[in-house]
């Protein structure tokens, strides 16, 4: 029995301080990413969730070039991209503005890396993330900032939900759609700033998309969808830590793979349920329930 226990949960998994940091930080960002992911799915803006962390990588490269902390550069760039996208999008198709913002950021990133011409380990670490390299102070910062952002989400929940599902109705009630666009992109940017150092710029969006998408197929109410996505995101990062600690496989691969499994499982469950009458996906009922 102890043998099996130690095979799955290798010694030190709950005692070494660097693993404890990983447990706390990953749990905090999983909850945050799942809640932001709820709105990403609701609004059908997976492209934004992909583009912001990916483009913000440029900020890290730029910060390295001028000798500033790379995570600070990442956050500043993520916020700039979010403001640009949130304000510009009314003028064109969403996807076009997102794509243009992303390639602009990446073009600059390519320039920064070429001009810098040094292999910067801490910049490339941000591409793939360092779950097991989080220091004690970083853990505390990630946890506190996550709690603050979750509080912000609680405050904007209702207007953002309205603006995302029934925009005309929301506008009639005095909700500014532009303000809600910017609020949404800023939430993605802030969540990305916390997620990228842990999971990596390439795969930070996995946590925002997979668990929340699975939640949509499993739940019947918006609250249910949120709870499911938080639960699935936590399960995803916890299993990733256990496997990653045992095998040293890249964390992004584990998070993406487990999110995909959760999503596929949810699709299968939804497909099996749909054969019974009266059980549609939650999307169909959300507009009705919030407008009430």
């Amino acid at each position, binding site marked *: 029995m102890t043998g099996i226990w130690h095979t799955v949960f290798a010694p030190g998994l709950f005692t070494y301080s660097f693993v404890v940091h990983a447990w706390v930080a990953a749990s905090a960002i999983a909850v945050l990413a799942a809640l932001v992911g709820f709105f990403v799915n609701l609004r059908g803006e*997976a492209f934004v969730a992909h583009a912001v962390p990916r483009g913000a990588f440029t900020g890290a490269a730029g910060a390295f070039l001028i000798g500033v902390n790379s995570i600070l550069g990442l956050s500043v760039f993520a916020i700039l991209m979010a403001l640009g996208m949130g304000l510009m999008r009314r003028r064109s198709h969403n996807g076009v503005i997102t794509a243009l913002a992303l*390639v602009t950021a990446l073009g600059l990133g390519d320039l920064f890396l070429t001009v810098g011409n040094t292999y910067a380990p801490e910049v490339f670490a941000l591409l793939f993330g360092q779950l097991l390299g989080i220091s004690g102070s970083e853990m505390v910062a990630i946890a506190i900032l996550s709690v603050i952002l979750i509080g912000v989400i609680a405050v904007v929940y209702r207007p953002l939900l309205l603006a995302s599902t029934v925009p005309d109705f929301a506008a009639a009630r005095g909700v500014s759609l532009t303000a809600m666009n910017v609020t949404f992109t800023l939430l993605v940017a802030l969540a990305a700033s916390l997620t990228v150092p842990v999971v990596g710029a390439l795969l930070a969006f996995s946590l925002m998309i997979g668990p929340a998408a699975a939640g949509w197929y499993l739940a019947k109410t918006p609250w249910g969808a949120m709870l499911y996505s938080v639960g699935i995101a936590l399960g995803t990062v916890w299993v990733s830590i256990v496997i990653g600690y045992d095998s040293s496989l*890249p964390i992004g691969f584990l998070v993406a793979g487990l999110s995909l499994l959760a999503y596929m499982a949810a699709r299968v469950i939804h497909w099996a349920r749909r054969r019974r009458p009266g059980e549609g996906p939650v999307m169909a009922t959300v507009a009705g329930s919030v407008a009430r």
Partner: protein
Amino acid sequence: MARRTGDNGAAPAHTTMSWLNYLVAPGFLQTGQVQSALILGSAVAVCSAVVGVFVIIRGQAFLGHALGDVGSTGASGAVLVGVQAIWGFLGAGLMAGASVDALSRRARERDVATGVVLSAMLGLSALFIYLIGQVSTSTGVTQEILFGSVFTVSPALVLPMVGLAVAAVVVVGFVYRPLLLSTVNPDGARSRGVPVGLVSFLFLVAMIAAVEQSALVMGALLSTALLIGPAATAIHLTRRLGLAIVLSVVLALVDTWLGILLAYDSFNWPPAGRGWPVSFFVVAVMVVAYSIGQAIPRTSAGPRD
């Protein structure tokens, strides 16, 4: 167009040759790398510009970008098993396109399905790069996969790449009318007997061919830039589809040529001897063109969205 860039117009007449050298660094058209870059870049530009117009009016910008991005998974997989990168790119593109298609039965599901497939493929990419790191000590693979460069493509690939670009444009030309009809009014197209599913599938195949060859030649970043930038600018400027396609092609060609020219010139810029990346210049020219386009008010009445 090229001559209007730079501040060399005021140079005295007797220094014609020297300012020309300044604008176009010596040996530009004689260098083999530049020649194949210009040929490949032009093929990619034309193909992306034509496909891109339909990508935008069909609202598939995310899928277009994702197809380019998943090419990196194919590329790292190809490195791992030791086959030609082009098969990795095309294989990954076909897999991703088919998966997104299968997962999005309803239009509402397409965005998230694209995200999930992209995330899964990038996850695989992380695994492949990790495995490559286990078997070899080369660190350049990551950077090369992330930012391909048009100057480093092998000359042997020029012909197959140009062929792929031509094939994609021919497919789009072949389904032009039914594609337009099923994009603007799918129900109307169906009632007229247009095989909407087949037409969408053919366009998806053309899109995969266009995006993957462009991702291989120019890198994933530029493949998205050339697919979306010129087409978005052109669509803003005219409501006539044929004209938009022509305009998009012209913008994409000028953009690519300027990008390659400036990147070649930049070998003499600080930091000396290193050169600035083509992708930066192409994106910069694209953003300038798009911004100028946005500043020009639409002549025709009524909103298009």
